[in-house]
């Protein structure tokens, strides 16, 4: 099981700030594809990803219990 955190535009698209994905046997890229299909999220190729609060890339593999944050382009300051 993997917890997915959504922010900003993605949170509005999904109508929730977090999701639970039943399996963890996949890469970040595969997770993004799955979320696009299951939840209709868009522009995930334009989204940064953090696993357990550390930035990572699309080839990273998920582990059971991970928290994955999908981070649209940031605009602090």
């Amino acid at each position: 099981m993997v917890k997915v955190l959504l922010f900003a535009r993605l949170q509005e698209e999904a109508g929730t700030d977090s999701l639970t994905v039943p399996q963890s046997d996949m890469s970040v890229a595969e997770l993004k594809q799955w979320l696009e299909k299951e939840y209709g999220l868009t522009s995930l190729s334009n989204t940064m990803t953090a696993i357990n609060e550390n930035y990572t890339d699309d080839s990273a593999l998920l582990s059971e219990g991970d928290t994955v944050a999908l981070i649209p382009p940031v605009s602090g300051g």
Partner: protein
Amino acid sequence: MTEKKRFLITEEPISTEDVIQKVIRRECGAVTTFMGTVREFTQGKQTIRLEYHAYKSMAEKMLAEIDKEVSNKWPGVTTAITHRVGTLEITETAVVIAVSSPHRKAAYEANEYIIERIKQIVPIWKKEYWEDGTTWVGDQLEKVPYPEGAPQKGAHHG
């Protein structure tokens, strides 16, 4: 305890003086302060108010990460950064960055570096409320691609 955290995301209005006090030391001869405030007009378009959201725990961690980059580039400086989240009205302060240093040059340079890095790697989002709708800034038109899925590593100022 919260008052003492040098890297802070808060829902409360920011006291610039409090942020400055976190970097005052006997060794420093210069303190620079940057305040980011809510602007009313952007290219002629009127903002009614802003809403900031953050991935709070990671955002504070990334602010500390920027502090590490700064310490490598400008040894001897001390930084403190507070960013506000929630709804902000025009002229309110969204972010305060204080940098102290023995000499002024490093304090100026490090302060500018910090705001640039905040805009690149800290998970905070700004939603603009216009008269005729809303926009998540940083996201419109997908102008900022992240082909690798992760931001670039530090030090774009060379």
